[in-house]
């Protein structure tokens, strides 16, 4: 596991990149139970169609959890100060996600030296699904 504290971070440095396997219906069913988010739109095709969608789609928070995992693989978890994302587009079944992050700014935050990271999650077509930001202590 890489450890960001062991090196000097600079603006523009890529801190993380992680790929995830295709999102299956089974995975969404498991996440429904594991997360407590029982919204049927993610697991029940009939409900999704009635809501006007062609199929079920991933929970935004499942996709954010993948991004969070990519983040904490690269950044020692106790260093994480904040984590935010905007859900840009629906993530379809079968999507193969790639999560990336790079340093945009070095800042003082509550008396700590911190780095701001810009984060993205894209599918296999390069479409952005999530865009976000994290602040990490360095």
């Amino acid at each position: 596991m890489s450890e960001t504290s062991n090196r000097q971070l600079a603006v523009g440095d890529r801190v993380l990149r992680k790929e995830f396997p295709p999102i299956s219906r089974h995975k969404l069913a498991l996440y429904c139970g594991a997360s407590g988010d029982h919204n049927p739109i993610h697991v029940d095709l009939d409900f999704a169609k009635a809501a006007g969608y062609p199929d079920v789609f991933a929970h935004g928070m499942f996709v954010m959890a993948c991004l969070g995992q990519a983040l904490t693989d690269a950044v020692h978890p106790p260093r994480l100060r904040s984590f935010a994302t905007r859900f840009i587009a629906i993530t379809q079944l079968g999507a193969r996600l790639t999560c990336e992050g790079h340093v945009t700014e070095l800042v003082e935050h509550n008396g700590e030296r911190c780095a701001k990271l810009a984060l993205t999650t894209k599918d296999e077509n390069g479409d952005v699904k999530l865009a976000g930001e994290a602040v990490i202590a360095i």
Partner: protein
Amino acid sequence: MVDHSVVGRSLAPVTAHVEPGRLRFFRETLGERNPVYTDAEAAKAAGYAALPVPPTYLFCLEMMDAEQAFEFLDVLGADLKQVLHGEQRFTYLAPVMVGDTLRFEPRIASITDKKGGAMTLAVVETKVTNQHGVHIADCSRTVVVRNKVAA
């Protein structure tokens, strides 16, 4: 359309327990392999007294232990078919670990109409404290309501 007078209203507080079995299910679903989250010794070496939770798990705890996970929909006068998650923020102030009991206090922080009323953004802000009364995190969720607009 969403009633703007609900801004400032508190939703029912939620008391949630960080249970090891539920947390393991979450980790396995996500394929979490980071030893800080899976191995008690690695967690201790990282400064945690017990296994910590991954960064988005606070959101799950609040939903799992809520009496009504979708209470905000009633307050907004919307149904599940109309809403999407627009944005999510977490600010981490202190560790959250297996064995903790957390209190979530959500409130409707703002409501903004967009696109001539075609959609409404509702922000729910939640203060989270632990069993010692320590303020451990703030969460903010933006819900996008797709309003039923007459054609």
